[in-house]
């Protein structure tokens, strides 16, 4: 859980404050300018970390009022 939270925090910081460190076009990553690819990669990592947090957070296992989907 701690690992997932740290990862989420790192991803958020990388998105918000990391851009200054990677403000360059080359090398292209996934066909995109480096600074754009940096954001894309951290967005994906951040989403993964949030998925982990969701899976590990005991509150999501015990809470029952959400059963049956939200649609």
């Amino acid at each position, binding site marked *: 859980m701690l690992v997932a939270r740290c990862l*989420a925090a790192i*991803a*958020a910081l990388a*998105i*918000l*404050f990391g*851009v*200054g460190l990677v*403000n*360059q*076009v*080359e090398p*292209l990553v*996934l*066909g*995109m*300018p480096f*600074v*754009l690819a940096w*954001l*894309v990669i951290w*967005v*994906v990592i*951040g*989403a*993964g970390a*949030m*998925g982990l*947090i*969701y899976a590990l*957070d005991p*509150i*999501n296992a015990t*809470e029952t*009022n*959400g059963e049956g*989907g*939200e*649609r």
Partner: protein
Amino acid sequence: MNAALVVIGLVAAMALTLGVAARHGHDMNLEQWSVAGRGFGGLLVFLLLAGEIYTTFIFLGGSGWAYGRGAPTYYILAYGSLAYMLSYWLLPPIWRYAKQERLVSQSHFFARKYASPALGALVALVGVLALVPYLVLQFQGLGVIVSVASYGAIDARTAIWIGAATVTVYVIASGMRGVAWNAAVKDCLILAVVLFLGVYLPTHYYGGLGEMFHAIDAAKPGFLTFKPSGQSVLWFESTVALTALGFFMWPHAFSAIFTARSERAFRRNAALLPLYQLILLFAFFCGFAAILQVPGLSGAEIDQALLRLSLKTFDPWFVGVIGAAGVLTALVPGSIILVSTATLIANDVLRGLYPEVAERKVALFARSLTPAIALVAVYFTLRGGQTIVNLLLMGYSFVTQLFPPVACSLMRKNPLTKHGAAAGIVVGVAAVAFVTLTHSTFVSLMPFLPAKAGEVNVGFAALMLNALIAAAVSLAARAAETAAPAPPRRASAADDDRA
């Protein structure tokens, strides 16, 4: 009349018919009209309302900024993702409190948390102020689509009037219920169109994504990275912070939170929705592809980039399909915003000040307000000159001023009093309004600041000012309270909300 306009007209007519049909069998009282009787599933509403992902903002605005500004457009990808990550912790307590207190609007949330109906009315006013530029940008998008797709036969001013009239008729006829019916169609259509264009255009004109970015970098060095000044890295950071914090502060976003059936939905969305943001990339690619193919658009014209390139690339009927997708991305959110604004003025401002007004009158008033609000938005649209993204940033500068009092009200012991919250909001909004209206910057107003400070987003600077004032006034109010011959218990607004 060309094939493109025929397709667009047909889709608009179909949307109107659907909207009116959706009304069938429902008595249009205020609750039906404004929140469809609270009958929508939570996830559906959340997807519909909580993001700008599938609106004109991305379709024309995001691609337009990629075309005209380059790197600054990346901020759009960053802020939504951060906001969704934050939502894991921010939204469940808001939802819980709203459920426990049976709240129906953002203004009620403030009124209850701070035990102050006046603060609720103030918050509703700020909401209206922020929603106007948001509505203007939808009208502007409609104008761009109709005028470009008509190959110039309909000029932009006429197109804006047509678009505004369509939205207004649609909203008066069906309210929120018609919106939901069209929203599903819109999401599928826009997803298909953006993915297709984002892949096809770079491949068709450049042979691939990497080749396209190499070509742009060679033709316009520095365009794909943040500049040392102006819209710099500092601008990016402050803008992303402003918009990420404000993401859920919109009045309609709050309503969407309230409609969820369980708080777990928010936590799950926190992992799924950041990935949704990646669709933005394809809108960016369309704008970047246009740079070397349809050069020369400047000022607010950059919003036309995607459509101009489509015009150059495809047959009229397919331009019509793209235009129709665009019309829906403006029509659906435009209607949601128009309904929200009218409901805010009628239900939260008017009723907040005069609680004894009858429900029927409020409902009638809300519906009769819609043409007036649409006219105001048309007026600002015709004055023009702003790009779509700039308009949304202006809305964010206003609406994010609500973040400090919301965040503080969720703490165990609220550090803000109602006076502090109100003072902070008023100062923050006034600062943004002053800077916007006088076309000045904080640096020109306060010359002792370093020039670098001018790159900080105006709304973010106002947000800092807001927080400072709110803290100072709250401290003073509490001090005055303790100094006065006090009642036995310290009866601050923060304690009242548990009483």
